């Protein structure tokens, strides 16, 4: 039996104060996306969702209150695109973020470890710098859950800064352990390239 995501909305969790991120505004053009301030989240938002995207500004303490709804969404084949440093156990199997200590330039090299539709055709090292400065993409990794697939590695040890995980009970999570990716109009054009793919992946379309 395969886990076909049920029909549902794209839940975009807006955690910071101010305008929603460009990725969310792009997603909103689809018509099936819902931007919700994190403080206004209800269980019904999860019940109605097919997938969700969270940003690095996620209130992780508050989001833990939604862990049961999140688990149910995943169990029925939902998808979650996560940006940031995992410091709370939202799902069984997740570990805490591991930073690179005193990162130097060589510690911030990026390597494609396995192909993934979000990154297809993109030279991963071209994500390393914005205007000649490295580190914006990320500076550490969220530990690879058992059975997850590392997509991009960071540093000489190729620690899994990006991974995709098919949960034992169903559903998929993508973890990017850094600043939000898929921003629009920034100094690195790769972000605009991956933005529609992140949306499509979260909805189970790629």
């Amino acid at each position, binding site marked *: 039996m395969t886990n076909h995501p049920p029909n549902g909305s794209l839940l975009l969790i807006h955690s910071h104060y101010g305008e929603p991120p460009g990725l969310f505004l792009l997603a909103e053009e689809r018509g099936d996306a819902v931007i919700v301030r994190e*403080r206004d989240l209800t269980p019904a938002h999860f019940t109605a969702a097919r997938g969700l995207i969270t940003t690095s500004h996620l209130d992780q303490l508050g989001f833990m209150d939604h862990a049961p709804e999140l688990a149910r969404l995943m169990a029925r084949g939902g998808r979650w695109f996560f940006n940031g440093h995992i410091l709370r156990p939202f799902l069984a199997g997740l570990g805490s973020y591991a930073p690179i200590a005193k990162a130097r330039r060589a510690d911030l090299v990026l390597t494609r470890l396995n192909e993934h539709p979000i990154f297809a055709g993109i030279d991963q090292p071209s994500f390393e710098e914005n205007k000649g400065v490295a580190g914006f993409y990320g500076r550490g990794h969220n530990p690879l859950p058992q059975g997850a697939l590392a997509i991009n590695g960071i540093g000489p040890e190729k620690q899994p800064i990006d991974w995709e995980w098919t949960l034992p009970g169903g559903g998929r999570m993508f973890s990017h352990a850094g600043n939000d990716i898929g921003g629009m109009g920034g100094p690195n054009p790769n972000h605009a390239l991956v933005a529609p793919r992140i949306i499509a992946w979260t909805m189970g379309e790629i």
Partner: protein
Amino acid sequence: MAILAIHPGTYYHIESFESPRYAHYFDRLVRPEALADVALEEFNVVLIPCRTPADRMEPHRAQLRAYLDQGGTIIATGESDSELFLPGITFTPQPTNFWWWLTPGADLGVRISRPEHGLFRHLEQKDVTWHLHGWYDVPAGAEVLAVNESGKPILYIDEVTTGGRMLITSLDPFYHHGSHFMPATTRFLDGFLPFMRQELDKDYSR
């Protein structure tokens, strides 16, 4: 003798407040939504960290004002739109140059304007220099501790607007330290937090 910190719950707040390096500087952590249940007057200092969503603080404006007027001290760091929930703040954002230091010999322009202030027994100019996010029109009588490249205040103490004391800055050390990104911000907190404990965490009277 006690310091209360508002805990908005992002990874950078968790890392800053809960990790061993600084956890002992915060006697109690409180979620913004739980503020109404806290007797603020029991604390000498209330700290509101960088990137606290203003709409989570706005409901507590009156409580914060009452705390100040009975002689409390509030510290608010940058990127929190503090003018929306604290009195007497007039803020003008400025574009952030993330790349200034790539130019050999470049100078962001931050200057300590009151080197005789006790804070600067703990901090040097390089410890307050990373990014500029904006400046303040401070009330007459406020004490300006640091300025930007145009001589505009970016760190000041206001003991005139209320019956208490506000230390306000547009610097965002908790965000960067908690992101493991920007050593100057860790140096800032290495100096600022001992200053907070030694100089501000005591009964305050004019």
